[in-house]
């Protein structure tokens, strides 16, 4: 039995979707040109993960193993479509920015990975918590990468926050230097790869530092 503590630690750090499992890279690299975009996609992915894990866990008793994968795919696709429609109804401006990436959540292997690997073998409580923590871990990386690229690329932070949080949030935008010329590389796709690589380096460095004397077992990333 996995404890809540282990689930939390795995999701946020030890088995982080973006930094260790390296799943969902397509949306991760594509949308993180600003913090707000990153958080937007992060929240959508988080909700998808919690809902799909919960539903998969609820039906785990009577799903026949021959058809479980198509059933999981059906559940995930339905959840994502519902989120997409709700977003169009509630946050239309954000939808205009993230629109094309929302359907891509269906193809985020992290979600079917958690459904198959965790939710289908555990009770509802832990499964939902796993979805929440895996989703949070992904969200934090998206936000960090977005922040990194936005600061270096545009010299701002929280630009367009009003798209997500309403007009009051316009004051959230921080502009560090009026005359900042921008650094294009950080905004373009290569910047996303460099940024993610940097975050992975930092994570591994933090992991290795306190236990230099111990034997280190490399985590085996699942390949896609």
């Amino acid at each position, binding site marked *: 039995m996995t404890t809540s503590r282990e689930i939390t630690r795995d999701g946020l750090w030890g088995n982080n979707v973006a930094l260790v499992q390296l799943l969902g890279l397509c949306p991760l690299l594509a949308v993180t*040109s600003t913090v707000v975009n990153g958080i937007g996609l992060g929240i959508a992915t988080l909700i998808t993960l919690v809902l799909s894990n919960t539903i998969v866990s609820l039906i785990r008793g*009577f*799903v*026949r193993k*021959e*058809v479980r994968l*198509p*059933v999981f795919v*059906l*559940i995930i*696709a*339905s959840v994502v*479509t*519902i989120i997409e*429609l*709700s977003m*169009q*109804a*509630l946050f*239309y*401006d954000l939808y*205009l920015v993230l629109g094309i990436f929302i359907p891509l959540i269906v193809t985020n292997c992290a979600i079917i990975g958690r459904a198959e690997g965790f939710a289908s073998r555990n009770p509802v409580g832990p499964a939902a918590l796993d979805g929440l923590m895996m989703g949070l871990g992904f969200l934090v990386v998206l936000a960090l990468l977005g922040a990194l690229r936005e600061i270096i*690329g545009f010299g701002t932070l929280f630009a367009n926050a009003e798209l997500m949080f309403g007009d009051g949030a316009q004051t959230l935008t921080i502009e560090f230097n009026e005359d900042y010329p*921008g650094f*294009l590389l950080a*905004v*373009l796709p290569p910047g996303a790869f460099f940024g993610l690589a940097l975050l992975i380096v930092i994570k591994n460095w933090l992991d290795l530092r306190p236990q230099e004397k111990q034997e280190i077992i490399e985590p085996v990333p699942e390949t896609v």
Partner: protein
Amino acid sequence: MIAISRRQILISGIFLWLFAVAGTTLVALTEYSSREAIIENERQVLLRNLYALLPRDKLDNDIAEDILELPASPLLGTDAASIVYRARLAGEPVAAIFNSIAPNGYNGKIHLLVGIYSNGKLAGVRVVKHAETPGLGDAVEVRKSPWIKSFDSKSLTNPDPSGWRVKRDGGEFDQFTGATITPRAVVTAVRNTLLYYQQNADMIFN
């Protein structure tokens, strides 16, 4: 292969079918309950774009509804029918706002809204959709640079035809540092839209 009995196949099939029905029902219900809000949102965004080109006090009709479908035209850059919005004040034509396309952007098509007053002067131009390079070509967006406003109140006679080019090509419009193709495409598309209006003005306001 593990042998699976016919009965098991049937049960699995029905199970999968039930899930497909349940999933589709949920999606359909959500679509049904969010449809009106989504249509209203799209309309608000459209009105916001249109009113960015034409001050509200210059028209009194419902511009989003007073539309005409135009057949595909090389001057508008369209290869399918497109919509023109018509602004009127007390029934008199004020301006027409075209959906035109610059087909030769650096990264594919650039979708424009081009507002033209009935006297042939430009009310304004806005880019509604594009895939130009961030930080270079995306200066055609009004929130990145005021460049797109350099079209305001221009017409086919101001500047004269030889001036309807970017400066590098000997015309009057600025290009961007490091990006000439994008503004060149937009300038050409705006000029072509003006030509289209000149040739079809009567038809547009019937």
